[in-house]
């Protein structure tokens, strides 16, 4: 990596519940102002990596047992998630986690908990509403009674309300209509370009992720198995076959792939 890393994760191991070893030495760097994608199949450990960075592991009874995580050169393993938010790092959790009893608008406003200026918060709220007009129409309903996609927008919007300098996005596109997915990535690009927000992005939608990010890491079974410039990864044959569904160049119809069974993997 050329630019000075904003976030530097080196060789971390994570154990859940004292016995389940999930990350087996993961290292990655996120440069200031970059968009880094974290790719990998189900259970590869993407979410766990993000949780380790944002210090949300404790609530899952997980712990980082080896390695170090540095933000702007400062060790952050012992900070609380709230401290991290103060330092500008916000995570959008996988599976939405909206505050069920709060309305959409209240959800968004709690996102601005760390901010003082009322005016800025109001402006930010408007900005989120322009990103996601659907939220505006549903602003008074309790989050629990909105549709899955609406909740996802709410979760993303809520994180943006903190005016972060770095966002950890865990599967932002999940459950969103294609148009909105596009929109979310445009927002990412936009914030990155205009406000220099750094993104670390765990994503299943590999083609989208690689299109919008600068750099990518591919994880499998708790290890990083490949990394490189996004553009390079996108043209890598293996990546194309396994993550983009384009083995042999052309995209295969979902109807046809049904016959081929075993996956090929880098690791057994």
């Amino acid at each position: 990596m050329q630019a000075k890393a904003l976030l530097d994760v080196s060789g971390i191991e994570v154990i859940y519940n004292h016995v389940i070893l999930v990350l087996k030495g993961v290292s990655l760097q996120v440069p200031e102002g970059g968009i880094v994608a974290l790719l990998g199949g189900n259970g590869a450990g993407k979410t766990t990596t993000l949780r380790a960075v944002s210090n949300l592991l404790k609530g899952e009874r997980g712990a980082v047992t080896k390695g170090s995580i540095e933000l702007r050169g400062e060790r952050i393993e012992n900070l609380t998630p709230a401290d991290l938010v103060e330092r500008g790092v916000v995570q959008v959790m996988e599976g939405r986690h909206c505050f069920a009893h709060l309305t959409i608008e209240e959800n968004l406003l709690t996102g601005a908990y760390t901010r003082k200026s009322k005016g800025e918060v109001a402006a930010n709220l408007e900005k989120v509403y322009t990103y996601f007009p659907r939220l505006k129409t549903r602003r008074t309903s309790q989050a629990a009674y909105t549709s899955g996609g609406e909740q996802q927008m709410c979760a993303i919007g809520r994180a943006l309300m903190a005016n972060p300098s770095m966002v950890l996005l865990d599967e932002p596109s999940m459950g969103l209509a294609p148009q909105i997915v596009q929109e979310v990535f445009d927002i990412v690009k936009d914030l990155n370009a205009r406000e220099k927000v750094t993104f670390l992005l765990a994503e299943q939608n590999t083609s989208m992720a690689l299109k919008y990010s600068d750099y990518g890491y591919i994880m499998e079974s708790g290890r990083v198995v490949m990394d490189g410039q996004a553009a390079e990864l996108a043209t890598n044959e293996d990546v194309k076959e396994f993550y983009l569904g384009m083995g042999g160049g052309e995209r295969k119809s979902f109807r046809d792939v049904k016959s081929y069974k075993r996956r090929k993997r880098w690791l057994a």
Partner: protein
Amino acid sequence: MTDAEHLTAARRKVGEVILDVQNISLAFGGVKALTDISFDVREHEIRAIIGPNGAGKSSMLNCINGVYQPQQGSITFRGKTFKHMNSHQVAVMGVARTFQNLALFKGMSVLDNIMTGRNLRIKSNLFMQALRIGPAEREEMRHREFVEHIIDFLEIQAFRKTPVGQLPYGLQKRVDLGRALAMEPQVLLLDEPMAGMNVEEKQDMCRFVLDVNDEFGTTVVLIEHDMGVVMDISDRVVVLDYGKKIGDGTPDEVRNNPEVINAYLGTSD
């Protein structure tokens, strides 16, 4: 879609209308989730429902399987018309379902989760189950065998005894499907079964759905945001937008419907 593909679809004998939704309207307070929706589902077909977020797709499924009671309209299943049904009745009639926001039984293992899908078919009573004598045990074993087939089919053998809460999201989706399959349903309602998966996993999932559809002739109603999937595997597509139906037809028809393009697909692709 190529012609060859249509041929495969045609070879599967798409039959009579099995499920007919007539003029369903559903509102929550001021929010109109569904307005006067009608469509039908034919036996053995794969029927997709698409639409932007909050269009009312999940609500539609909820109406079909009795979680929500629509204010208006009726649903005809195999010739019988219902205004209100409770979930249990629907299940007995052979409609199974997966959920958008995973609704697995978190404290139970994968095996047990799928076994619950067999519960409707278990005949032995409480006392026999407590004593686990002959028939009860044989019955349990029979169902276990069936469930093992499903586990094999979905390739989750390794996680048989893992509590589902500890599985990664994608596998949980598979277990959800397994549970529905265990009911040996005639109609399978799938709510975004492929969300949060990468292409390869989606391919697997498609394979499961197609296999079920092919081999058991199960009718599938599918909600999905991935247009690739929808266009490739469904026979007909309903498009909802803000609770209204704005399109209905074969994937090709829908793809070219300007209203649908405007509301959902967008022009970029």
